[in-house]
């Protein structure tokens, strides 16, 4: 896979992709959007259901399924048994799973550096104090 001339590097996902997560019962639904096709294709082999499940550890007790929405350069991960009982029964602070995206975005993934660095998130300016 990685036999081209490009530089590949371990990069945290929050610097490259968009993501939104939410709940449905006790399942968490996480979408991941790549800034370009090259990153999307890299994620196909890097951001597998196995790696996602492993990353979440105890937080995701059930299965992880992946779907693809090609025109939007998106993968969607459905994580079962992942909210400590689901929205209205969960004791967690994040009972609706809205921060599960942030938790996924911590993951470091091997990506082609040049394609990753074109993401607007890669070059976020230093925060200003308003």
């Amino acid at each position, binding site marked *: 896979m990685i036999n081209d001339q490009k530089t590949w590097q371990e990069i945290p996902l929050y610097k490259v992709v968009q993501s939104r997560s939410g709940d449905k*019962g006790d399942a968490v639904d996480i979408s991941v959007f790549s800034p370009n096709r090259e990153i999307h294709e890299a994620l196909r082999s890097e951001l597998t259901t196995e790696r996602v499940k492993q*990353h*979440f550890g105890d*937080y995701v007790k059930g299965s992880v399924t992946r779907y693809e929405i090609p025109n939007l350069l998106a993968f969607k991960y459905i994580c079962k048994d992942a909210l400590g009982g689901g929205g209205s029964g969960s004791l967690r602070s994040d009972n609706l799973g809205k921060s599960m995206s942030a938790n996924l975005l911590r993951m470091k993934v091997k990506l082609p550096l040049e394609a990753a660095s074109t993401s607007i998130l890669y070059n976020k300016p230093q925060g200003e104090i308003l």
Partner: protein
Amino acid sequence: MKSVKVACGQGFYGDSLRPSLRALEVGGIDYLCFDALAELTLAILAKDRAKNPEFGYTKDLPDMMLQLLPQAKKNGTVIITNGGGLNPACAAKAIVELAKANGIEGVRVAYVEGDDVLDSLNQWQSDGVDLSDYDSGAEFTALKDSPIFANVYLGADSICAALKFNPDIVVTGRTTDTAAYLAPIQSALGFASDDWDKAATAIAVGHLLECGGQGAGGNFSGDWWNVENLHDIGYPTAEIFEDGRVIISKPEGTGGRISRDVLKEQLLYEIHDPSCYITPDVIVDLTDVDLVDIGENQVELKGVKGNPAPPSLKLIMGLPGGWMSSGQIAFSWPYALEKAERTAEILKKRMQTEGINYDDLEIEYVGVNSIGGPTAPRPDEDSVNEVVLRATIACQQQGDAVAFRKLFPPLYINTYPFVGGLRNMLHMGSLLNQWSCLVPRTLMDGCVSANVVES
């Protein structure tokens, strides 16, 4: 070419009214659609109705409608809301009466009833309808407690029937969030209810709009720091043309952002299998969906496909899930995290001494791992300025929930130094278990009706 313009007015019970007022101020909207019902909301409304049979609708509904009615009537904008909750008839009456008391006459409110099936459950069960929970597989007969509420998700046909009264406002109970959009689009453009691609496109429009700010630059994970004027965010609007073309936008001059990058996050939000997003009206296939930036704050939605409506409807029940009780205590640097962790151990021993019975205990360190869980790395102790220990139990008896909260105030002086944030640190409430099943659509034949109240 014929077209219809719909806008989002509310994304949830408790949402701001300002975006609706701004949408009406800017004008050009045919239908303003509100979603007020999350799963838990019906449990709250059931308690209201138990106290007074005239209640059971979202309490803020009459006053919200009063504030919107003058401009909506002037513009000819029809409002559609599911805020009728468990009592759409009384909600409709309350809106008309409050408007009249404030000098607004000639108000017509249509309402939809029939989704509340709590009283039919026993009959259905003895008729052999399968009411087992589709998530757990548990049998309905095994229920310890009777449900707090039981509602069937109704689709757009019920709202279309209400729109025939030519109302100012349509109030429903548990209709789907997206039906509030499909119904007016279908009524206005007149396509057949089995034109599955057009119906699916209208549902996708509803899905993009129904969460309000989340579809206009709120909660945006792209370049969020560049989204302007979120204090005056405009909720999304959509213009749907007779030939199926759809343009998503927002009221001119409002804050937030409409773009492909913003909308793609909302389009896939909470839909699970994108090839099979099931609604009572149509099964939506988003496999080939696309969003195209066509101008500033203007995006075209393309490629939505539809498959025939499913033979069954979703029935949701709320079951009493016992109690939750939660307490917090904030520790300051130095050694904030270590102190919080030691205090959690003290709390556990105190629970044992007091004999508190509980089903589940969740210990979180706010500022360290309360939303990151096991994915959040442990910080260097010296970098932790402060940390809040949050401990929560689930229990069956109210007495245990009360006993748990009583353990907290003494911890503020009996444990470790430099605590803060001691006001409003206790929370107690009831928990809800959801029960979902699929029932044959034909069970609802003749049960759903639309009526009207007017002044």
